[in-house]
């Protein structure tokens, strides 16, 4: 039973990450390959606050969200200056940069050794000991993430995001300050990822750089894309499905050294398949992008 809750927790955490990615990618056309790094920023922030300054999750989580949002600012700057595929590569660069900081800044992060024994204190003297309580937290986080995504995807705000996604020049011609929108959406995305990281650090009581690498980012992107990057619940389903696969592989008795690369290969194939078979609107209309970006523009 505890094991089942563990799956729910991991699925819930990754679902929030997938939702955060789909918010910026599916709605605004900004695909970031750095969610794992921002996730890590949140995790390390909470871990350091909890271990060094004795701040419980109730304080650590908002701090993690704030710092993760700040950590997303360079992504927003890149988004304001770069077109689609250049932006994706810039986020890749940022991801590996942050990951290398986690590895190398040994004084703070203890490098590959990681930070251990993170207290599972939520508030005052309330300590969590069972997985079921964490599972509730994880579910609440997922639902809240979807809720935020829903609010920002619909209505007037969402309409502007869709303009930015499909053809930036329309948004500009309508007088929308697209830089502001890009900043806001990426910072919200970052805050959600930071919250997920916070929960992750408190649950696993141990953070090390291996959980925040480019591989994890690609996993999150695949979850969102496979589940349906423009939908609200799709990324959640994608996360649930793609968290289950390695667990099922484990049960089938396949040794870990085979299971790990095997499930990665499955992710890779799933990604290729989806990209090749999905109608063009994965990250915005190709026609709109061609019009918006191939003209000689200011």
């Amino acid at each position, binding site marked *: 039973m505890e094991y089942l809750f563990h799956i729910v927790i991991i699925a819930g955490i990754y679902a929030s990450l997938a939702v955060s990615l789909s918010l910026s990618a599916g709605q605004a056309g900004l*695909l970031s*390959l750095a969610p794992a790094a921002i996730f890590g920023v949140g995790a390390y922030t909470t871990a350091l606050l909890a271990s060094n300054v004795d701040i419980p999750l109730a304080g650590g989580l908002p701090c993690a969200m704030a710092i993760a949002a700040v950590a997303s600012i*360079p992504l927003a*700057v*890149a988004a304001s*200056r*770069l*077109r*689609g*595929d*250049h932006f*994706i*590569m*810039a986020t*890749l*660069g*940022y991801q*590996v*940069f942050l990951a*290398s*900081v986690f*590895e*190398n800044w*040994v004084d703070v992060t203890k490098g590959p050794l990681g930070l251990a024994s993170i207290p599972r204190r939520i508030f005052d003297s309330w300590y969590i000991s069972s997985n079921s309580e964490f599972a509730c937290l994880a579910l609440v986080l997922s639902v809240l993430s979807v809720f935020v995504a829903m609010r920002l995807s619909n209505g007037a705000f969402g309409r502007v995001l869709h303009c930015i996604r499909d053809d*930036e*020049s329309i948004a*500009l011609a309508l007088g929308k300050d697209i830089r502001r929108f890009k900043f806001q959406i990426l910072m919200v995305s970052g805050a959600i990822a930071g919250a997920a990281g916070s929960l992750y650090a408190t649950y696993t009581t141990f953070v090390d750089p291996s959980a925040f690498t*480019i*591989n994890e980012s*690609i996993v999150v*992107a695949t979850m969102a*894309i496979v589940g349906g990057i423009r939908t609200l619940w799709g990324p959640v389903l994608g996360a649930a499905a793609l968290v289950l696969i390695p667990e099922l592989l484990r049960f089938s008795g396949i040794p870990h*050294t*085979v299971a*790990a*690369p*095997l499930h*990665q*290969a499955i*992710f*890779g*194939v*799933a*990604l*290729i*398949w989806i*990209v*090749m078979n999905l109608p*063009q609107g*994965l*990250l*915005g209309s*190709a*026609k709109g*992008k*061609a019009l918006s*970006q191939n003209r*000689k*523009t*200011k």
Partner: protein
Amino acid sequence: MEGQLSINVCLAATHYGLIALSFALVSRTAKFFHVAHCAIFTLGAYITFTLIGTGVGSVASVVGGVIVGSAAGCAMDLIVFQRLRRRGASPEIQLLASFGLLVTLQSLISLFFGNERHSLLNQPAEMGISLLWGHATPTQLLAAGVSLSVAVVILLWSRLSTAGLILKAVGDDPGLSLARGIRTDRAILIAFAVASGAMALGGILQAADVGLTPLMGFQALLVGFAGALLGGLDSNARAYFGGVAIGGLEQLGAMFLPGQWYESAIYLLLIIVLVARGRRALGERIE
């Protein structure tokens, strides 16, 4: 000390120059960032490793690795990218597909060969030859020489041959090229073939020096990509020299920065160059 540094710089420079050149060649012609290109780097090394393991001679194994690498690159184009192009997919979509290919290939290699570092040639550690300024092993010198020669050949070919000029035209303006009767699909396929062959060779040469791991390609990609960007993706020669520069910077960084921070520095440089160049992408400013 400085002498050894300059030797290391030269070795790294020729190595990354070739990687940056091959990356620029394929990305420029196909007009998207072909990240899976680095999987060819790894694949070439592992194919050669397998061939040597089954008793094939060294030279034949190297040739085999290059051929398989080139073929794999062509397969990627024929199976995935050509179809995406036909459907008018944006560069981002092709980039995503390339990531899918990268992850798949890398994990399959991991699956079959395991994650430990293998040694390509299984010979005792070589004695460094004493050069005027420092030491380099015969393998390193051979690798640098081969790397340099291949790069020169490719650069000359791309500038002087008809095929090379066609590739440039397709990279500059595919619509216009198509209208002029150029078979753009075939041109892109040739770019994949040549660039993948060169990349596979790069992987083999690196493996000969320091051995192979499934992740070797990805690490090469980041540095090679940074180099290509630094020099400028709109010219093969400039991309090559960008790679050369990055190789030099990496060695300088390794010498002067504590621990592994030189890695972080290179990645930071990559981001900075991307963002700085973004404003001048192909002569346009992007709003």
